[in-house]
Protein backbone atom coordinates (compact mmCIF):
# COMPACT_ATOMS: atom_id res chain seq x y z
CA UNK A 1 0.00 0.00 0.00
CA UNK A 2 1.48 3.39 -0.95
CA UNK A 3 2.03 5.89 1.81
CA UNK A 4 0.25 9.23 1.63
CA UNK A 5 2.76 12.07 1.66
CA UNK A 6 2.06 14.24 4.70
CA UNK A 7 3.44 17.47 6.21
CA UNK A 8 6.65 16.88 8.16
CA UNK A 9 7.10 18.13 11.72
CA UNK A 10 10.56 19.00 13.00
CA UNK A 11 10.24 17.93 16.64
CA UNK A 12 13.38 19.87 17.56
CA UNK A 13 11.73 23.13 16.52
CA UNK A 14 8.13 22.30 17.53
CA UNK A 15 7.07 23.92 20.81
CA UNK A 16 3.69 22.16 20.90
CA UNK A 17 1.69 25.40 20.73
CA UNK A 18 -1.04 23.66 18.68
CA UNK A 19 -1.58 26.49 16.17
CA UNK A 20 -1.12 24.04 13.28
CA UNK A 21 -3.70 21.64 14.63
CA UNK A 22 -6.13 24.52 15.23
CA UNK A 23 -6.08 25.51 11.54
CA UNK A 24 -5.98 21.97 10.10
CA UNK A 25 -9.40 21.24 8.62
CA UNK A 26 -8.79 17.52 7.97
CA UNK A 27 -7.63 16.48 11.43
CA UNK A 28 -4.20 15.42 10.23
CA UNK A 29 -2.38 17.19 13.03
CA UNK A 30 -3.00 16.54 16.70
CA UNK A 31 -1.09 17.64 19.76
CA UNK A 32 -0.38 14.76 22.10
CA UNK A 33 1.51 15.56 25.30
CA UNK A 34 2.85 18.80 23.85
CA UNK A 35 4.10 17.18 20.65
CA UNK A 36 2.44 17.51 17.26
CA UNK A 37 1.67 14.16 15.69
CA UNK A 38 0.83 13.74 12.03
CA UNK A 39 -1.95 11.31 11.18
CA UNK A 40 -1.78 9.95 7.66
CA UNK A 41 -4.94 10.82 5.78
CA UNK A 42 -5.88 11.24 2.15
CA UNK A 43 -8.17 14.07 3.25
CA UNK A 44 -5.10 16.31 3.52
CA UNK A 45 -5.36 18.57 0.48
CA UNK A 46 -1.95 20.23 1.00
CA UNK A 47 -3.47 23.60 1.88
CA UNK A 48 -0.14 24.36 3.67
CA UNK A 49 -1.91 26.47 6.29
CA UNK A 50 -0.17 24.49 9.05
CA UNK A 51 3.19 25.51 7.61
CA UNK A 52 2.04 29.11 7.19
CA UNK A 53 0.90 29.58 10.79
CA UNK A 54 3.77 27.82 12.58
CA UNK A 55 5.71 30.50 14.48
CA UNK A 56 8.80 28.28 14.67
CA UNK A 57 8.90 27.06 11.08
CA UNK A 58 8.67 23.53 12.43
CA UNK A 59 6.31 22.22 9.74
CA UNK A 60 7.27 21.59 6.15
CA UNK A 61 4.81 21.04 3.34
CA UNK A 62 7.31 20.40 0.61
CA UNK A 63 6.60 20.22 -3.12
CA UNK A 64 8.24 17.89 -5.54
CA UNK A 65 8.81 19.89 -8.71
CA UNK A 66 8.45 17.84 -11.89
CA UNK A 67 8.26 18.60 -15.57
CA UNK A 68 5.22 17.24 -17.35
CA UNK A 69 6.06 14.56 -19.85
CA UNK A 70 4.56 15.24 -23.26
Amino acid at each position, binding site marked *: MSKTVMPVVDTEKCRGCG*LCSSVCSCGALVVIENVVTVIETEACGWCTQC*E*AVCPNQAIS*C*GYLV*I*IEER
Partner: protein
Amino acid sequence: MSVQIEQLQSIPYFSGLDLGELESIKKLVVEKQASRGELLVLEDDSPEMLYYVVSGAVKVFKTSAEGKEQIIGIARPGLTFNDVSVFDGEPNPASAAAMGPVVLYAISRDNMHSIVRDYPEVALNVATVLAGRVRHLLSLVEDLSFRHVIGRVARILLEYAGDKQGPKPHLTQQDMAAMAGTAREVIGRSLKALEEEGTIRMDRHQIVIADKEALANLVESAV
Protein backbone atom coordinates in the same frame (compact mmCIF):
# COMPACT_ATOMS: atom_id res chain seq x y z
CA MET B 1 -12.90 33.12 30.42
CA SER B 2 -12.33 36.73 31.41
CA VAL B 3 -9.65 39.10 30.19
CA GLN B 4 -6.31 38.25 31.82
CA ILE B 5 -3.85 40.93 32.96
CA GLU B 6 -0.92 38.69 31.92
CA GLN B 7 -2.26 38.70 28.36
CA LEU B 8 -2.76 42.48 28.37
CA GLN B 9 0.89 42.85 29.34
CA SER B 10 1.79 41.01 26.13
CA ILE B 11 -0.07 43.48 23.90
CA PRO B 12 2.66 45.60 22.35
CA TYR B 13 0.57 48.77 22.72
CA PHE B 14 0.49 48.35 26.50
CA SER B 15 4.18 47.67 27.00
CA GLY B 16 5.58 49.53 30.02
CA LEU B 17 2.23 50.11 31.77
CA ASP B 18 1.99 49.16 35.45
CA LEU B 19 -0.52 46.71 36.91
CA GLY B 20 -2.86 49.45 38.13
CA GLU B 21 -3.03 51.00 34.68
CA LEU B 22 -3.62 47.61 33.08
CA GLU B 23 -6.45 46.93 35.57
CA SER B 24 -8.15 50.14 34.37
CA ILE B 25 -7.62 49.23 30.71
CA LYS B 26 -8.95 45.71 31.34
CA LYS B 27 -12.46 47.17 31.78
CA LEU B 28 -12.32 48.41 28.18
CA VAL B 29 -11.29 45.08 26.67
CA VAL B 30 -13.78 42.41 25.59
CA GLU B 31 -12.97 38.76 24.95
CA LYS B 32 -14.31 37.29 21.73
CA GLN B 33 -14.23 33.73 20.47
CA ALA B 34 -14.61 32.72 16.84
CA SER B 35 -14.59 29.47 14.92
CA ARG B 36 -12.86 28.44 11.68
CA GLY B 37 -13.73 30.64 8.73
CA GLU B 38 -15.62 33.22 10.75
CA LEU B 39 -15.22 36.69 9.27
CA LEU B 40 -13.98 39.09 11.93
CA VAL B 41 -13.31 42.20 9.88
CA LEU B 42 -14.74 43.09 6.48
CA GLU B 43 -12.73 45.18 4.02
CA ASP B 44 -14.24 48.65 3.41
CA ASP B 45 -16.52 48.50 6.45
CA SER B 46 -16.32 51.24 9.06
CA PRO B 47 -13.66 50.55 11.67
CA GLU B 48 -15.05 49.27 14.93
CA MET B 49 -12.56 47.11 16.76
CA LEU B 50 -8.86 46.55 17.17
CA TYR B 51 -8.16 42.88 17.86
CA TYR B 52 -5.39 41.12 19.75
CA VAL B 53 -4.88 37.39 19.15
CA VAL B 54 -4.76 35.41 22.41
CA SER B 55 -4.84 31.96 20.79
CA GLY B 56 -5.30 30.56 17.32
CA ALA B 57 -4.47 32.21 14.00
CA VAL B 58 -6.22 34.86 11.90
CA LYS B 59 -5.58 35.52 8.22
CA VAL B 60 -5.66 39.13 7.04
CA PHE B 61 -6.54 39.34 3.36
CA LYS B 62 -7.74 41.50 0.53
CA THR B 63 -10.25 40.38 -2.08
CA SER B 64 -9.86 41.39 -5.72
CA ALA B 65 -12.72 42.53 -7.95
CA GLU B 66 -12.79 38.98 -9.37
CA GLY B 67 -13.20 37.57 -5.85
CA LYS B 68 -9.65 36.28 -5.52
CA GLU B 69 -8.17 36.26 -2.06
CA GLN B 70 -4.72 37.67 -1.39
CA ILE B 71 -3.36 36.92 2.06
CA ILE B 72 -1.50 39.96 3.39
CA GLY B 73 -0.40 38.32 6.60
CA ILE B 74 -1.21 35.96 9.44
CA ALA B 75 -1.86 37.25 12.93
CA ARG B 76 -0.61 34.72 15.47
CA PRO B 77 -0.88 34.88 19.28
CA GLY B 78 0.67 38.11 20.55
CA LEU B 79 -0.16 40.14 17.46
CA THR B 80 -2.91 42.66 16.71
CA PHE B 81 -4.91 43.33 13.55
CA ASN B 82 -7.20 46.01 12.15
CA ASP B 83 -5.06 48.62 13.86
CA VAL B 84 -4.72 51.08 10.98
CA SER B 85 -8.40 51.83 10.48
CA VAL B 86 -9.03 52.05 14.23
CA PHE B 87 -6.45 54.83 14.43
CA ASP B 88 -7.19 56.76 11.23
CA GLY B 89 -10.97 56.23 11.13
CA GLU B 90 -10.92 55.28 7.45
CA PRO B 91 -12.64 52.08 6.21
CA ASN B 92 -10.97 48.75 7.03
CA PRO B 93 -8.11 48.24 4.53
CA ALA B 94 -8.41 44.43 4.59
CA SER B 95 -10.64 41.62 5.81
CA ALA B 96 -9.75 39.16 8.55
CA ALA B 97 -11.03 35.65 9.19
CA ALA B 98 -10.31 32.96 11.79
CA MET B 99 -8.19 30.10 10.40
CA GLY B 100 -9.35 27.82 13.21
CA PRO B 101 -10.86 28.34 16.65
CA VAL B 102 -9.52 31.64 18.00
CA VAL B 103 -9.71 33.68 21.17
CA LEU B 104 -9.32 37.42 20.73
CA TYR B 105 -9.33 40.54 22.85
CA ALA B 106 -11.26 43.35 21.20
CA ILE B 107 -10.95 47.04 21.95
CA SER B 108 -13.38 49.47 20.36
CA ARG B 109 -12.14 52.46 18.42
CA ASP B 110 -13.49 54.92 21.00
CA ASN B 111 -11.94 53.01 23.88
CA MET B 112 -8.57 52.77 22.14
CA HIS B 113 -8.62 56.52 21.58
CA SER B 114 -9.37 57.20 25.24
CA ILE B 115 -6.56 54.80 26.28
CA VAL B 116 -4.12 56.73 24.08
CA ARG B 117 -5.33 60.02 25.61
CA ASP B 118 -5.08 58.73 29.19
CA TYR B 119 -1.72 56.96 28.89
CA PRO B 120 0.77 58.93 26.75
CA GLU B 121 3.29 56.06 26.67
CA VAL B 122 0.71 54.07 24.70
CA ALA B 123 0.95 56.67 21.93
CA LEU B 124 4.68 56.01 21.63
CA ASN B 125 4.02 52.26 21.57
CA VAL B 126 1.44 52.80 18.80
CA ALA B 127 4.03 54.69 16.75
CA THR B 128 6.57 51.88 17.25
CA VAL B 129 4.12 49.13 16.24
CA LEU B 130 2.86 51.01 13.18
CA ALA B 131 6.42 51.90 12.12
CA GLY B 132 7.20 48.16 12.15
CA ARG B 133 4.19 47.53 9.92
CA VAL B 134 5.34 50.22 7.48
CA ARG B 135 8.75 48.57 7.22
CA HIS B 136 7.17 45.18 6.50
CA LEU B 137 4.79 46.63 3.90
CA LEU B 138 7.58 48.56 2.20
CA SER B 139 9.43 45.32 1.55
CA LEU B 140 6.26 43.80 0.11
CA VAL B 141 5.66 46.85 -2.11
CA GLU B 142 9.17 46.54 -3.47
CA ASP B 143 8.51 42.92 -4.47
CA LEU B 144 5.06 43.48 -5.89
CA SER B 145 5.85 46.60 -7.87
CA PHE B 146 8.97 45.37 -9.59
CA ARG B 147 7.45 42.05 -10.62
CA HIS B 148 10.78 40.33 -10.24
CA VAL B 149 9.52 37.75 -7.82
CA ILE B 150 7.58 35.71 -10.35
CA GLY B 151 10.72 35.47 -12.49
CA ARG B 152 12.73 34.35 -9.48
CA VAL B 153 10.09 31.75 -8.61
CA ALA B 154 10.16 30.53 -12.22
CA ARG B 155 13.95 30.15 -12.00
CA ILE B 156 13.73 28.21 -8.73
CA LEU B 157 11.11 25.84 -10.17
CA LEU B 158 13.22 25.14 -13.23
CA GLU B 159 16.34 24.59 -11.12
CA TYR B 160 14.56 22.21 -8.79
CA ALA B 161 12.61 20.27 -11.38
CA GLY B 162 13.41 16.56 -11.18
CA ASP B 163 15.49 15.28 -14.02
CA LYS B 164 17.01 11.99 -15.13
CA GLN B 165 19.73 12.34 -12.49
CA GLY B 166 17.17 11.66 -9.79
CA PRO B 167 14.65 13.59 -7.78
CA LYS B 168 15.57 16.91 -6.20
CA PRO B 169 14.64 17.72 -2.61
CA HIS B 170 11.11 18.79 -1.80
CA LEU B 171 10.73 22.57 -1.71
CA THR B 172 8.47 24.36 0.73
CA GLN B 173 6.97 27.81 0.08
CA GLN B 174 9.16 28.99 2.97
CA ASP B 175 12.25 27.63 1.17
CA MET B 176 11.23 29.40 -2.02
CA ALA B 177 10.65 32.64 -0.10
CA ALA B 178 14.12 32.45 1.40
CA MET B 179 15.66 31.70 -2.01
CA ALA B 180 13.75 34.47 -3.78
CA GLY B 181 14.34 36.94 -0.96
CA THR B 182 10.69 37.63 -0.37
CA ALA B 183 7.80 36.80 1.96
CA ARG B 184 6.02 33.44 1.94
CA GLU B 185 2.75 35.22 1.10
CA VAL B 186 4.28 36.58 -2.11
CA ILE B 187 5.39 33.07 -3.11
CA GLY B 188 1.84 31.80 -2.66
CA ARG B 189 0.57 34.58 -4.89
CA SER B 190 3.21 33.87 -7.53
CA LEU B 191 2.40 30.16 -7.62
CA LYS B 192 -1.29 30.95 -7.96
CA ALA B 193 -0.58 33.35 -10.82
CA LEU B 194 1.56 30.76 -12.62
CA GLU B 195 -1.16 28.16 -12.15
CA GLU B 196 -3.86 30.48 -13.47
CA GLU B 197 -1.92 31.17 -16.64
CA GLY B 198 -1.41 27.41 -17.15
CA THR B 199 2.37 27.45 -16.76
CA ILE B 200 2.32 25.11 -13.77
CA ARG B 201 -0.21 22.80 -12.13
CA MET B 202 -0.46 22.35 -8.37
CA ASP B 203 -1.15 18.67 -7.81
CA ARG B 204 -1.29 18.32 -4.02
CA HIS B 205 2.39 18.02 -3.00
CA GLN B 206 3.65 18.25 -6.57
CA ILE B 207 4.24 21.27 -8.73
CA VAL B 208 3.98 20.08 -12.30
CA ILE B 209 5.65 22.32 -14.87
CA ALA B 210 3.16 22.24 -17.75
CA ASP B 211 4.89 24.82 -19.95
CA LYS B 212 8.65 24.81 -19.48
CA GLU B 213 9.21 27.33 -22.25
CA ALA B 214 6.82 29.90 -20.77
CA LEU B 215 8.56 29.50 -17.41
CA ALA B 216 11.96 30.05 -19.04
CA ASN B 217 10.62 33.18 -20.73
CA LEU B 218 9.55 34.54 -17.35
CA VAL B 219 13.09 34.01 -16.05
CA GLU B 220 14.48 35.92 -19.04
CA SER B 221 12.03 38.80 -18.73
CA ALA B 222 12.81 39.28 -15.04
CA VAL B 223 16.55 39.74 -15.63
